């Protein structure tokens, strides 16, 4: 990673409002996020805070009626919010790929793995016939530590375990040598040992190919093992960003602190208490800092949009507590 180089992905003030029959929901409320070439970045936050929506916006996979979008998403030299079909054809599945949350839903049950992987490889333009594609598919599966690629290629998804399907999806996401992979909770469906292996593989493969990864998860332990930098999202905005070691050593935003405090520890200190309340109703979100109704430090100023303060190099917090003159 080279901070002097321009970011590969630059999400700037991304906002998304959805008009629903029961009112307009402003879900994404100004998301700022960058990923540098070859960097491993994590996006964490509670269920319903907008992680998947952000990823779908980046992939150009959110085009619901009644959606109104503000802000900018730049990838390389392309403005993704203004990209036409030909532009997407050039990027999606090639320079920009995604691993979806549920491997069962992401793979088509009626085609063999060989068929599905060949389609992806042909799109990438590295092969021109299905036979050639199969020749490329074998090493792609071997690279994700699949010992017998031919058996897997001839299988249907339901004939493979969850762990194997997950590896197939990783192979698909990496085979065209993308510049950026969006991985939405890869391994949620897996047990800890398979999950650990899957992440180790993604780590090694992206290191080798120079691909950047934006990992979406609500497992903080996974973030610590995998990412270099972290964005913490709450109710549609980024509340804190920091290098991994720094965030885990000293989370600063009250929401991040509460999130960490809710994680049961292997050292066995007893069960933590959870954060009271839940993600707000996006039709009537709290004004200012959206966390204030649940925040133990909330004060009247929190009803205004919080300032974003850089508390240490690369460590930013969107909270009024850090905008005040701190004496002691």
């Amino acid at each position, binding site marked *: 990673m080279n901070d002097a180089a321009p970011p590969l992905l630059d999400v700037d003030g991304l906002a998304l409002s959805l008009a629903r029959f029961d009112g307009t929901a402003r879900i994404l409320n100004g998301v700022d996020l960058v990923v540098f070439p070859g960097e491993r970045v994590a996006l964490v936050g*509670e*269920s319903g805070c907008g992680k998947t929506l952000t990823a779908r916006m980046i992939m150009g996979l959110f085009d619901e009626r009644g959606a109104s979008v503000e802000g900018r998403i730049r990838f390389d030299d392309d403005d993704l919010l203004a990209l036409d079909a030909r532009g997407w054809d050039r990027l999606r599945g090639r320079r920009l790929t995604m691993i979806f949350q549920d491997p069962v839903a992401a793979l088509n049950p009626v085609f063999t793995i060989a068929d599905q992987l060949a389609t992806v490889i042909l799109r990438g333009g590295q092969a021109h016939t299905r036979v050639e594609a199969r020749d490329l598919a074998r090493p792609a599966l071997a690279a*994700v*530590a*699949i*010992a*017998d690629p031919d*058996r*897997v290629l001839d299988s249907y998804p339901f004939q493979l*375990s*969850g*762990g*194997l399907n997950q*590896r197939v999806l990783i192979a698909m996401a990496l085979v065209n040598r993308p510049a950026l992979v969006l991985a939405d909770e890869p391994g949620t469906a*897996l*047990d*800890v*040992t*398979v*999950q*650990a*292996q899957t992440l*180790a*593989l993604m780590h*090694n493969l992206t290191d080798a190919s120079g691909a950047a990864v934006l990992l979406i998860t*609500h*497992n*903080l*332990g*996974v973030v*610590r*093992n995998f990412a270099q930098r972290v964005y913490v999202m709450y109710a549609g905005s980024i509340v804190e960003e920091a290098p991994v070691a720094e965030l*885990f050593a000293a989370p600063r935003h009250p929401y991040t602190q*509460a*999130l*960490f405090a*809710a*994680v*049961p*520890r*292997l*050292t*066995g*200190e*007893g*069960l*933590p*208490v*959870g*954060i009271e309340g*839940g993600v707000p109703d996006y039709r009537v979100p709290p004004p200012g800092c959206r966390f204030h109704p649940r925040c133990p430090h909330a004060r009247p100023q929190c009803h205004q949009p919080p300032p974003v303060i850089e508390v240490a190099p690369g460590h930013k917090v969107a909270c009024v507590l850090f905008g005040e003159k701190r004496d002691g």
Partner: protein
Amino acid sequence: MAEVTRIEAVGVSKAYRVGDRRVQALSRVSLRAAPAETLAVVGESGSGKSTLGRILLGVERPDEGEIRLDSAALSLPLPKAMRRRLQVVQQNPLSTLNPRRTVGQSVALPLRVHRLVAPRQTTARVRELLDLVGLPTDTQDRYPNALSGGQRQRAALARALAAEPDLIVLDEPTSALDVSVQARVLHLLIDLQARIGLTYIFITHDLSVVRNIAARVAVLYRGRVVETGPTEAVFRRPRHRYTTMLLSAIPVVSAAEEAVKPQWPQETRAQTAEAESAGCTFAPRCPFALDPCWRTPPPIESADGRHFAACYNPKDATS
């Protein structure tokens, strides 16, 4: 030790037929849990945890072995009075809550089936139960779809509690929930256990949760209990090599936790075409396997009568 046992599995085996293949889901599994105790059951996907749960509940018949509740063997199909004593809460509460019934109707059902209250007291009792699990009273008129994940899980728990059970099998009750909601549901479970003396069989992949709520833990691998004992002993001094591998893979958030995890040689090779072992089922993946490991299943043994493991080359023999 003359400990009281609420539920006990004795030599339970179960096989399924899938096409022309036979899947041995459980092989001679024995374990027990005391009144008001939480026994965690952990192990990889497909190791037989849910199958064991269903057999403990008496909804499925073992091929061999038996389940004893307060020392009396269960006879299947379970009589109604027995069914009442054994309840379940699953990962997906929608599988136990009928989507076409309001929460109130679902919770009232066991009250009526088992005649636990006079009909005119049903509504009051439903309110009491919803209150017990921390759901607002107006939840009783809502359908499961209109509740959040955590609320649904509480509703499923209220329904299980309505039957006034002695034991609840919790099959991944919080794995669909966020850490903050999870913490609240788990606290509720612990509270109830202390108040009513419930026994929990807690099936989960989340070992950090196990460490904090279970008194004892049983580790399954390919349908066998490979290790069982007090949670603290198993986590601090795992003996079976599979347990070591499992514990070493837990993602944690601090260096202090990293320090209490055992080490394991990193394994990134896939094991798709795996050798068969006539002995320990873990031998094909075990870097510590010795000759006997491939030949004869290791007996489950204990030095202290509490912490048992079935391993020919247990961890503290070498490190």
